[in-house]
């Protein structure tokens, strides 16, 4: 379990990225959402032990991540959004790095690479940004670490690769694993992510499963402009809206609408979801 207790983090004094933030993440494919600059990547880096909290704690299975002890590090894989890839061949990179992870599966790596239609005998320097990402996603998922942190994994992937990505993630997921995907491309991952965390200006607006969200909210379309909604969007077919679920109706979650509703009703959402 990832526990974040009263975490504060600053790049500059007086401008907190997080201030006294607390929440937990257990198993699931978490969607980490938030506007630009709210600290999604920073949070992933803190969890991976690359950044240290100014106060409070970030723990993985009870151990502080800032200590970077090998046991904790062997449980985590981080795919950063921006990275300078190695200059070696893919095979060399895998040989050099995978040996540190006790549950790495070469077979799984090759299967993932096949799913992405990639070859393992190429040099990183010959690959495009999207192809490098495919290699690192294949590698990260085949390490079988209990915690996988993916920062904007679908950025740079072409349209077929996004479906391949969903397949790779879904096939690697089991109930003991915690995969956190920070993304703006919510439509790419709508069918995949559950629970959802929305970060907003030093705080967590929402950290709930899809079931909990749809129990409290409805996501609907109507011809006429609806009233008493949290968020309404007009489109060619009429209006799409997010409103309170007063009748226990089951509707399909629309993450983009949820996000817009949450950031335009911060206090209401915090109260509604007990954050």
């Amino acid at each position: 379990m990832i526990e974040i207790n009263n975490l504060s983090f600053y790049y500059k004094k007086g401008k907190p990225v997080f201030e006294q933030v607390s929440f937990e993440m257990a198993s699931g494919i978490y969607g980490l959402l938030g506007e630009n600059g709210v600290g999604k990547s920073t949070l992933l880096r803190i969890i991976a032990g690359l950044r240290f909290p100014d106060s409070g704690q970030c723990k993985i299975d009870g151990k502080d991540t800032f200590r970077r002890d090998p046991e904790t590090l062997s449980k985590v894989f981080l795919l950063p959004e921006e990275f300078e890839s190695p200059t070696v061949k893919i095979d060399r990179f895998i040989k050099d790095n995978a040996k540190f992870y006790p549950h790495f599966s070469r077979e799984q790596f090759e299967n993932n690479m096949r799913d992405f239609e990639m070859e393992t005998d190429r040099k990183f320097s010959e690959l495009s940004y999207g192809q490098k990402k495919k290699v690192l996603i294949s590698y990260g998922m085949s390490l079988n670490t209990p915690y996988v942190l993916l920062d904007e994994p679908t950025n740079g992937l072409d349209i077929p690769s996004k479906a391949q990505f969903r397949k790779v993630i879904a096939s690697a997921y089991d109930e003991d694993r915690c995969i956190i995907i920070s993304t703006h491309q919510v439509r790419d991952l709508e069918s995949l992510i559950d629970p959802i965390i929305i970060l907003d200006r030093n705080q967590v607006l929402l950290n709930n499963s899809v079931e909990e969200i749809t129990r409290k909210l409805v996501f609907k379309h109507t011809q006429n402009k609806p009233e008493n909604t949290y968020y309404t969007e007009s489109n060619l077919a009429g209006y799409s809206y997010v409103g309170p679920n007063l009748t226990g109706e089951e509707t399909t979650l629309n993450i983009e609408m949820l996000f817009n509703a949450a950031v335009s009703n911060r206090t209401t959402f915090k109260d509604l979801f007990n954050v």
Partner: protein
Amino acid sequence: MSNIFDIHRFGKLFTREFGRYSPKLIGIGSVGLGIFALTVIYSYVFQSSPLNFSFVAFGVALTVLAPIIYHKRVDRTNSIFDFTLPVSSFEKFLVKWSFSVILMPAFVIAYLLLIGWLYRLMPGGMCVESGSRIIDFLKSLSFEQICSISALQSFFLVGSFYFRKHVFWKVSLSLIIYFLLFALVFILFHQSMFLENHQVSLGINFWGDMMYSDSNHSHTLSGINRNLFVYISLNLVAPLGMWVVSFLKLRETEV
């Protein structure tokens, strides 16, 4: 399995880093052999000792190659897979330490030995004589002097953690300042303790031999092992300090 040091994990990390470092060593070795060839040609063409040219050639090579050897930028894009690798900070430090303090001097000595032998194999008196001079120099190196080379490397080690760019030049400049300060402290100490109202001039060489003269005498405290103050300062306290600072810096680095 210890979270601080595990020999198997260390071995894996060492081989990983050696694999990444070896192309650099091969490149540097090739450049070195190229320079060797040039010095031999120079020797035959100008009927002069190859060592005369080699000082210039190696100076140029060092100027060009040193930044490549010591420069390893650490930032949020290029170091993530190093920092998230499941090894301890101590193991990471120990690998860097062994490369910088042990392997690099060993590589230089092995290289000098190789070109010494190669010069001896070349026909012509100048080359053979130069080879013998190199071999004699290496034979004359005492354990303390080899330690001094490693101690010097410790400054570059700590520099590689603190400076993001131009590590070699910045460390070299820092070393010059360090020696100047060291000499200044020595002179002030010497004047205040023993030689009030006397002018003292001081010289110190790479091996820790210290030459000083006042208005009445001229002295040479030669040999590191006989000059305990210099020996301890240069070969024990300074490197140990550098290692501790390097380790702490590595542990505290955020990317």
